[in-house]
């Protein structure tokens, strides 16, 4: 649904399907290495595309370790700090694995890390669900321009961008094919193309400037 902005302004692919596959394999190995076996790892994807990435990572982890990794989704809509800057958004699913998150190593998974506000909201949401042993963050693309003191533990690709650029992650499960596109936003109004399922970090480029004034940190 956000694709039209990419079609109107020719976007350059920065990651192709094989790259994404390689990157996820590497991240899976890094998780196993850092968690010393991934025994207590729980993967929580942030809707929409973070959930698909989390499921793919879980499959890789299972390949590597031989045991099933609990995977779920964590919707952050109700915890956003910019809810009052637009109409109420439709909610996405939150599904926490049956054994919960208490005492476990939770790895949050998202497609694009940008302002960091989505992750701030995710940390708040997680705090209402349980008390993990530790929380880590895995993202496919880190495009910079952080507005909060948040960093990723596992990064697929560091992508230096300007705030006028857009980063669009496409995944087979949602968009029919895999790829990451870097485009240029033509006008300010293009900032409002986001659909209800938008996760925030992917498309909220143009919102960033006004939202800094209107939004006090909700956390």
């Amino acid at each position, binding site marked *: 649904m956000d694709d039209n902005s990419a079609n109107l302004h020719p976007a350059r692919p920065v990651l192709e399907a094989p790259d994404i596959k390689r990157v996820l394999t590497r991240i899976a190995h890094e998780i196993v290495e850092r968690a010393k076996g991934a025994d207590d790892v729980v993967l929580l994807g942030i809707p929409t595309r973070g959930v698909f990435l989390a499921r793919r990572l879980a499959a890789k982890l299972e390949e590597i370790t031989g045991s099933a990794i609990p995977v779920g989704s964590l*919707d952050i809509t*109700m*915890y956003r700090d910019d*809810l*009052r*800057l*637009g*109409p*109420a*958004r*439709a*909610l*996405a*699913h*939150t599904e926490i694995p049956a054994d919960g998150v208490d005492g476990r190593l939770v790895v949050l998974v998202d497609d694009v890390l940008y302002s960091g506000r989505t992750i701030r909201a995710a940390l*708040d949401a997680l705090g*209402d*669900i*349980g008390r993990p042993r530790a929380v880590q963050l895995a993202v496919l693309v880190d495009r910079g321009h952080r507005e909060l003191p948040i960093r990723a533990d596992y990064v697929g690709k560091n992508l230096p961008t300007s705030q006028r650029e857009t980063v669009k992650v496409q995944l087979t499960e949602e968009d029919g094919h895999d790829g990451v596109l870097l485009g240029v936003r033509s006008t300010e109004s293009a900032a409002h193309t986001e659909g209800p399922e938008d996760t925030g970090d992917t498309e909220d480029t143009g919102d960033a400037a006004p939202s800094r004034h*209107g*939004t*006090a940190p*909700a956390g």
Partner: protein
Amino acid sequence: MKRHLISAADLTRDDAVLILDTAEEMARFADRPIKKLPTLRGRTIVNLFFEDSTRTRISFEAAAKRLSADVINFSAKGSSVSKGESLKDTALTLEAMGADGVVIRHGDSGAPHRLATSGWIGGSVINAGDGTHEHPTQALLDAFTMRRRLVGEEGAALDGKRITIVGDILHSRVARSNVHLLSTLGAHVTLVAPPTLLPIGVDSWPCEVSYDLDAVLTKSDAVMMLRVQRERMNAAFFPTEREYARRYGLDGERMARMPEDAIVMHPGPMNRGMEITAEVADSPRCTAVEQVANGVSIRMAVMYLLLGGSEPALSRDDTARTEENN
């Protein structure tokens, strides 16, 4: 969605499905150790109850509190209303206190509409039952319960489901809201009542009417029994209570003739032995208790969709105040 929820007839099919889907997510939060969400922090919701109600007021209050809103309960008894204050002056008082949302229950049909369209207040108005007019959140929670039991699929409506509403249609705001909402969602609604308890103009409603419960029962996916509203019965609408119970009450024998998966619904409070026997009320097919639990989820969804975003807040003059509350 509109800024207010006054009538179930104002909801489009997409609106209604969005509310049901949102309520489904809200229901998931109810299973958590911490049932609170920060979404309406800093917003004030006033429960303005001019008529007695336990379950609806508690349900709205629980929903608002789970979304972290500040709740002010106002009941007409023991307030300035009993000293003769008008609806307008009460509304102006609430506006001065900065109410972002007003949940209103009133004995007179049209009071919520008056409140929403008069320009007295800037917040959203949610109708919690007005006279014999409408009770839209009750219809939504009924539809939610039906969708869970009969369809079991999110994003879906109630297409082709056969819903029978039995009893005092004349005085029932629940029936009126349900007829509008259920037909919007694609269900076939049949009303069953003695001719004296059907309102004038019922033939223009999007539903069928029958006087014979036994004929309709066997073709119903859900049967909703309405309370006989003794407090509104100042005329003789039927000869005796026993005759009413015999012709329009649901007992175990009648329930056994319903299709196997069909459910029995009741908006409460129940008159056991009148419109429903204890045997039916306590059977697993009766969803009355489930409806109460679903009511909180539905009211959370409605409040979130009306008050969670910018639209109602930004249409006010004093946006500075709400931003301050951020």
